[in-house]
């Protein structure tokens, strides 16, 4: 380093780019183009949900929990329902456990395909964005067919599920799954065999297994670094214990684990195939039976009023382990409610990933962990009062230029 004359720059980013969703703020120290130090400022989207939860009854909280994050809008209410069921000792019928697996895997497919489009968009491949989002539309049609709304599914109920999949709905589900299976092979071919994507993603934003374990990274980010962490397998909930599947790590295809952006692409695309397979297994093994333990809601609210205890709900969301903690003291409304989104644990791994990377790599590395609190709309580099406005459009343009430079 050339001694004390090193200056760092303040770049607050104003507008929000369409692909970047919720705002999160970084602070980097930069030596020229190379990033030397990273600091993260969160909380632009703090809506005080946990506090609002203590003032409502559990049925209302289901729909509040659904709007914590729009893309994984199934895992939050479902792990809240798990926590309440464990605190109140409510048994869930077996058919409902299978229906819950189907909804969870369907959401994982839609979320990973969405992510593939956003990641391709970050490095400048808009045609891949349109290709993947065209596939995602079929996934959303299936979600709408099964739950009644494209994004906020509203299928969760404490003690089971709100809608059943009857036998005459199964052929339509199977037909949509075949369409998805065939198209996802095409996307995987596009992503994994494209020379430019390999140039941009190989050895970029590396997270070593040691760092992933120490920083408790979760989900595909951890699995891409070789850490075998998957709540569906570690601590089987719903009906995952009856299905046969295994941890998805990049060495299935490439035979080695590097923990870089390319490995995260592999892990997510393999997981989409795994999810389709899981849904098919569920459709075959699903037993007959009722779909919710207590259909009458006033009765359910009455039983929840008498609960006095605490429960935890853990679930594997598309981005990683979602954790809910609920404490009841017999007043109907939960006394305490703690929500931990998977991105909570995937924020700190950004720091080892982004060190010694270039500024142009920030969008793709940040997008590679698929942050639900999501991509950078604020990149601020601490300056000695020299302000240099660089909006996220320029950040994105830098990223595209780098792709062009590499691919010539």
């Amino acid at each position: 380093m050339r001694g004390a004359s090193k200056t760092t720059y303040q770049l607050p980013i104003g507008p929000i780019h369409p692909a970047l969703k919720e705002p999160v703020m970084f602070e980097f120290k930069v030596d020229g183009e190379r990033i030397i130090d990273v600091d993260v400022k969160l909380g632009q989207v703090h809506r005080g949900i946990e506090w609002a939860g203590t003032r409502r009854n559990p049925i209302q909280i289901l729909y509040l929990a659904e709007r914590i994050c729009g893309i994984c809008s199934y895992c939050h209410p479902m792990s809240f329902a798990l926590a309440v069921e464990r605190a109140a000792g409510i048994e869930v019928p077996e058919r409902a456990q299978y229906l819950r697996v189907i909804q969870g895997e369907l959401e994982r497919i839609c979320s990973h395909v969405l992510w593939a489009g956003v990641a391709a968009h970050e490095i400048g491949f808009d045609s891949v964005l349109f290709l993947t989002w065209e596939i995602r539309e079929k996934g959303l049609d299936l979600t709408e067919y099964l739950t009644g709304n494209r994004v906020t599914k509203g299928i969760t109920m404490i003690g089971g599920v709100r809608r059943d999949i009857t036998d005459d709905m199964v052929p339509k589900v199977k037909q949509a799954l075949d369409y998805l299976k065939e198209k996802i092979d095409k996307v995987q071919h596009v992503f994994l065999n494209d020379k430019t994507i390999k140039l941009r993603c190989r050895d970029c934003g590396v997270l070593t297994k040691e760092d992933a374990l120490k920083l408790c990274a979760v989900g595909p980010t951890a699995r891409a670094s070789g850490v075998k962490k998957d709540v569906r397998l570690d601590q089987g909930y719903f009906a995952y214990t009856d299905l046969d599947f295994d941890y998805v790590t990049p060495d299935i295809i490439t035979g080695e684990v590097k923990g870089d952006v390319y490995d995260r692409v592999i892990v997510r695309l393999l997981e989409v195939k795994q999810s389709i397979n899981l849904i098919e297994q569920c459709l075959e093994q699903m037993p007959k039976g009722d779909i919710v333990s207590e259909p009458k809601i006033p009765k359910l609210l009455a039983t929840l009023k008498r609960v006095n205890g605490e429960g935890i709900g853990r679930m594997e969301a598309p981005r990683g382990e979602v954790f809910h903690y609920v404490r009841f003291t017999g007043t109907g409304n939960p006394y305490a409610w703690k929500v931990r989104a998977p991105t909570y644990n995937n924020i700190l791994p950004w720091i080892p990933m982004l060190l010694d990377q270039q500024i142009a790599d920030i969008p793709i590395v940040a997008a590679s962990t698929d942050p639900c609190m999501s991509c950078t709309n604020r990149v601020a580099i601490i300056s000695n009062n020299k302000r240099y406005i660089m909006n996220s459009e320029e950040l994105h343009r830098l990223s595209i230029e780098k792709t062009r430079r590499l691919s010539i």
Partner: protein
Amino acid sequence: MSKALSKSFKKALWVYHCNSGSCNGCDIEIIAALCPRYDVERFGIRLVGSPRHADVLLVTGPVTRQLVDKVKRVYDQMPNPKAVICVGNCGNTGDVFYESYNLLGPIDKVIPVDVYVIGCPPRPENIINGVLKAWLKLETLEKNKEVRE
């Protein structure tokens, strides 16, 4: 001159999307409206990266305390004539987040809103319907301006 301006204005409506603390259910529906299936680009609607080039502001989310002045600044940077479309119920009335210590009111408390797109999240066609209503409003604005001249 105003006649020429209004004609060119109708063909290309440039849109800028601002997320003021939304759960991003509406944001992905806005992006879905841009993608091949609904493809608002055939109406000349294009998403631009800066409010300075935009005619319509698509706002989502109940405004959090940290983003209040950001939303105001984005609104002020937009050139006239401009329209604001508030997408999603939590932007319209603070739907599920009606009670909070960190939210400063639905969007029309921060900036004047022209069209409210109702839904949680609204379907992409509903957003197109909202844009159509914004056009009507902008057109009547143009007519009143011509009548006044």
